[in-house]
């Protein structure tokens, strides 16, 4: 048949609904853009990080590493003499705070003689090799030089303790590793950063013919507690895994955006199909095969999807570029510090997300297309057939099965560290509820008492008579409202929990960090005394942060040695659940964060061993605390215990209680006067820390807020489309009503009632479903992704306001779309049949 005719008929759809089509395209574009941007940023960051790691680990077959503070350097001699080891290269790694900046640079102290054979990227490029050994000389990677805005001939000032160390930039190192770091002689690094006697790492190159796995196993058995041996690529994998949950969550947001986009396509197409019902029937009678019609309509959806994908890919690329420029490689989450990635067009993921966008749009248009093709052409050519499109009321069984499956899925453990079952549960619940919508509508409407006014009563009767009709309108609003509500409750709970946590964690008046970044800053014992002696200080509690390797396959966990009040050490910890009473004869207590429970299987009462200062010491897990700061897990021990076991008396942080009447500003002035070195330390009040933390939180969730707004708009547009479709389908009904004597106003009132009823049912269902989904987000998805719990905190007020606003908006939308759909020809529409 004539393609021109087909094109004319189908093309009409596009000209008629430009606004809705544009929105559909934008919704698809939003999902594609978000997904593609996440993929690009991640590819850039992970790729660069892994590449940099490869460059930096050179030809090392194995890597021996221990706590952040290092292990006894005597181990180097043992490893170097190992029969399987060809070259052992000792490394001191310091995250050095850059003086005057709230930033740190990784400084590797290496023995150039050894590193040259194992990790050549860690050897500076010097005219004379002796320059590499000079105590004050440092070599910067090109990325670090660019970042610092300094180069050979200049100086680099870093903080060690609370004092400055000035290093002369002697040249470059690292080739094209693309990462920010500096290299200096190992002895100089030990001296400059008070790391005498300890190493952070020993890189091993094995003899040709040595079996790496056997050597690794054998070496592992000889290592002191807290020191592990692993292949460098395992460490890269560990780092990659750290950021995975974060990335997956962003990708799920992208999928949610795509899903809502699909819903929008669905409702838009549903409306457009109803509008063109007679045209399709005409085409069918002219010989267009049913399958061909479906294909044509699905192709329409594909076109929308393709347009959305193209816009989305471009926007995603721009978004990724902007994010990398603004936040750097680490997505603002601190996973990839030191990496300086370049964004590169990734054809493969572009293809995947474009295909997803098209597929979603095609799926969205498939159901309306089938409905259109299903109609018998002869009947459809006649008016009054449209209601069939929405007439069928399906069995509730599939919906109920899906809901049950969703509930069951919340019980499943994470898959590969990812909360896939949790996301699955949410999807199942959503789809299950959508399938049940006609039933729900029928159930609710059956219980609504008949209103006395004529128009509303008629509206109710209409809805009761054909609950299936409402389900299309309901679907979009339920989906968007439930997604929005679940995220709103989750974010609100998280924010509230974070706020409470900060309040519990920050009881003092002022907090002093030796350095705001890196691990090179600390207070030695003299500094601590000086700090405590500053006038106006009532009491000081110190904290020593350390990082331990408990499991070679997992990232280091943080050990916090804190001065805790002797009588009740636990009052200063944001504990969750029961704590263990202290019993005589027990080893010293350790309080573990929730991540330690999830990742390391610790539980209250468990006897554990911690590697400190090259030995293992028994501890008993006394309680679990909530930690939003360290995803990989953290342990708290009393500082007195830590000092007794390790002899390490230095501190990284101090909590200061001021005497009555002393302000933080007065304290700062007194501190500067009495302890000038502390000028390098960062001083903050709990209020500042809280404001900063919440600001960071809000920034992190800004994308979520944006999506919430988008979900609302999409939901309303969807509602408008589908309601418009409904009204259009019933034009003859209205015409009859008008002929029977109902006024325009009365028909309007009837439609407004229907709109209000549908909106109210949709909102109520969406709110309920959203609440349930928020529980899944909070207790399953978040816990499994980030290993922290949060208390449910429902923002009733804002939810109520939002619901009311939505109800009004939904009613207004339905009335407006009803008006538009009725147009002027309602009365004439009746005549179409005659």
């Amino acid at each position, binding site marked *: 048949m004539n393609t021109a005719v087909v094109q004319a008929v189908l093309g009409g759809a596009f000209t008629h609904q430009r606004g809705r089509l544009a929105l559909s395209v934008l919704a698809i574009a939003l999902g594609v853009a978000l997904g593609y941007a996440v993929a690009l940023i991640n590819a850039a960051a992970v790729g660069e990080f892994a590449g940099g790691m490869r460059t930096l680990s050179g030809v090392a077959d194995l890597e021996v590493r221990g706590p952040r503070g290092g292990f006894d*350097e*005597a181990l*180097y*001699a043992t490893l*170097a*003499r190992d029969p399987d080891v060809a070259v052992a290269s*000792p490394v001191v790694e310091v995250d050095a705070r850059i003086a005057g900046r709230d930033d740190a640079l990784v400084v590797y102290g290496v*023995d150039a*003689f*050894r590193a040259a054979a194992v990790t050549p990227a860690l050897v500076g490029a010097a*005219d*004379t*090799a*002796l*320059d590499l*050994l*000079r*105590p004050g000389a440092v070599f910067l990677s090109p990325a670090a030089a660019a970042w610092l805005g300094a180069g050979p001939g200049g100086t680099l000032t870093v903080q060690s303790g609370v004092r400055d160390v000035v290093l002369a930039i002697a040249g470059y190192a690292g080739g094209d590793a693309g990462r920010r770091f500096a290299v200096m*002689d*190992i*002895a*100089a690094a*030990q*001296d400059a950063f008070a790391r*005498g*006697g300890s190493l952070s790492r020993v890189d091993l190159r094995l003899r040709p013919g040595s079996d790496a796995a056997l050597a690794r196993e054998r070496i592992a058995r000889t290592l002191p507690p807290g020191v592990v041996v692993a292949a460098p690529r395992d460490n890269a994998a560990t780092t990659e895994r750290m950021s995975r949950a974060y990335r997956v969550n962003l990708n799920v947001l992208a999928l949610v955006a795509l899903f809502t986009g699909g819903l929008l396509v669905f409702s838009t197409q549903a409306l457009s199909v109803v509008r063109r019902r007679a045209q399709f029937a005409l085409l069918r009678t002219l010989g267009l095969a049913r399958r061909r019609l479906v294909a044509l309509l699905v192709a329409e959806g594909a076109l929308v999807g393709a347009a959305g994908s193209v816009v989305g890919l471009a926007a995603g690329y721009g978004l990724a570029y902007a994010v990398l420029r603004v936040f750097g490689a680490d997505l603002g989450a601190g996973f990839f510090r030191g990496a300086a990635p370049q964004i590169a067009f990734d054809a493969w993921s572009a293809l995947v997300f474009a295909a997803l966008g098209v597929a979603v749009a095609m799926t969205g248009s498939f159901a309306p297309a089938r409905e259109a093709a299903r109609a018998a052409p002869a009947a459809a050519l006649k008016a009054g057939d449209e209601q069939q499109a929405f007439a069928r009321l399906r069995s509730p069984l599939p919906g109920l099965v899906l809901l049950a499956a969703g509930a069951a899925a919340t019980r499943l453990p994470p898959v590969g560290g990812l909360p896939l079952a949790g996301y699955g549960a949410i999807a199942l619940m959503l789809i299950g509820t959508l399938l049940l919508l006609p039933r729900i509508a029928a159930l609710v409407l059956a219980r609504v008492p008949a209103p006395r006014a004529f128009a509303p009563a008629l509206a109710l009767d209409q809805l009761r008579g054909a609950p299936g009709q409402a389900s299309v309108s309901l679907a979009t609003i339920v989906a968007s409202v439930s997604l929005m509500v679940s995220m709103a409750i989750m974010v609100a709970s998280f924010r509230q929990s974070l706020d409470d946590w900060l309040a519990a964690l920050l009881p003092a008046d002022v907090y002093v960090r030796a350095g705001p970044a890196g691990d090179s800053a600390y207070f030695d014992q003299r500094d601590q005394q000086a700090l405590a002696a500053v006038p106006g200080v009532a009491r000081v509690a110190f904290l020593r942060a350390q990082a331990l390797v408990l499991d070679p396959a997992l990232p280091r966990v943080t050990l916090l040695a804190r001065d805790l009040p002797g009588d009740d050490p636990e009052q200063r910890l944001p504990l969750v659940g029961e704590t263990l009473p202290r019993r005589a004869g027990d080893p010293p207590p350790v309080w573990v964060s929730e991540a330690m429970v999830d990742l390391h299987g610790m539980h209250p009462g468990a006897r554990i061993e911690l590697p400190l200062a090259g030995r293992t010491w028994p501890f008993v897990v006394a309680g679990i605390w909530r930690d939003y700061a360290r995803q990989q897990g953290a342990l708290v021990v009393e500082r007195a215990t830590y000092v007794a076991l390790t002899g390490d008396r230095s501190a990284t942080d101090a909590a200061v209680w001021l005497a009555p009447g002393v302000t933080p500003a007065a304290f700062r002035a007194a501190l500067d006067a009495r302890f000038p070195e502390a000028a390098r330390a960062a001083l903050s009040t709990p209020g500042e820390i809280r404001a900063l933390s919440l600001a960071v939180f809000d920034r992190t969730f800004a994308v979520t807020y944006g999506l919430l707004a988008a979900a609302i708009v999409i939901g309303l547009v969807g509602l408008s489309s589908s309601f418009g479709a409904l009204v259009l389908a019933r034009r003859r009904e209205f015409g009859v009503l008008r002929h029977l004597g109902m006024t325009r106003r009365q028909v309007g009132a009837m439609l407004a009632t229907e709109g209000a009823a549908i909106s109210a049912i949709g909102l109520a269902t969406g709110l309920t479903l959203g609440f349930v989904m928020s529980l899944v987000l909070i207790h399953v998805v978040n816990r499994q992704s980030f290993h922290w719990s949060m208390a449910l905190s429902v923002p009733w007020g804002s939810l109520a306001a939002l619901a009311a606003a939505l109800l009004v908006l939904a009613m207004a939308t339905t009335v407006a779309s009803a008006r538009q759909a009725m147009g002027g020809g309602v009365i004439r529409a009746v005549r179409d049949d005659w």
Partner: protein
Amino acid sequence: MDRRIFLTMPWLLAAGRVRADAAYARVERGAALVFPRDHGSHPDFRTEWWYVTGWARDADGADFGVQVTFFRNRPGIAEASASRFAPKTLLFAHAAVADPRAGRLRHDQRAARAGFGIAEAAEATTDVRVDDWSLRLAGDTYVARLAARDFAFDLAFGAREPPLLQGEGGVSRKGPREAEASYYYSRPQLALSGTVTLDGRARRVTGVAWLDHEWSSEYVPPEAQGWDWTGLNFDDGSALMAFRMRARDGGDLWAGGALRDAAGNVRALGRNDVRFAPLRQWRSPRTGFVYPVAFRVDAGPVSVELTPLMDDQELDARGSVGIVYWEGAVRALAAGRPVGRGYLELTGYGGPIRL
């Protein structure tokens, strides 16, 4: 003498420029060397080396040149460091084997800062090691063990005579200024025996070798372009060391040597007693540098012609220690008749040795 090759290493070039925070010990005329103490290392001095070169013959009658060197350097930086990694003492080792059938040198090296038992140079007697490369003196026998990239040595060098003190009682002048001197003694006519592993095949070898032990804090004259050196073990049991320092203007800047006869009588040779006359040039196909690989050497009463075991004994160490030189096994001929075997060292032919 003048195994000054290591002096030209970038390490030392730099050390010359640096105002070292170390107070180096000075070479004093008249100070007597005491053994076995002076077989050991002298960490107060800036540089020191133990340099073994020898001719080895396997069961098939094939000749090889073998060379093992351990070098100690005190760069004078990080003297105040409290770290056990402080680079107060650096140790290098270098080994080469000249196999005429291969036609070129195989060589390898090791470098490390002293410490942790990984690299050490004992003071009591010769006992120096870098990783699994070592040279030790036990009784009158030196033992060198090392496994290089494509060869390995397990060699003993038996001394039959007391050390040959160079210069004035072991103080050897290197240039026109008095400070340009070193403590220097040689062990000629060492009986070489042991195993050389080449291409995975261990060969029992015997032969004759030469050891130099030299330490100092200052020496190479700034005007030097390079030097020629030879140490020869004559078949009659006598031995000759001769060197000349070449000036940049082409003339001889300094020269010297020592001759010991079979009976053990030593004659010191002054700067006018030693002459090197090139006989034949060889151009390196790799670097394009031209070396006089054959010489007529006149040293006191001795006049010999030196011809190389093979022409290509060039050591291109630019990738590691930064210089290219020629260090090779040579035969000594008198009136066309072989009279001895030894080593010849030629430096400064790829451009002046810069200081």
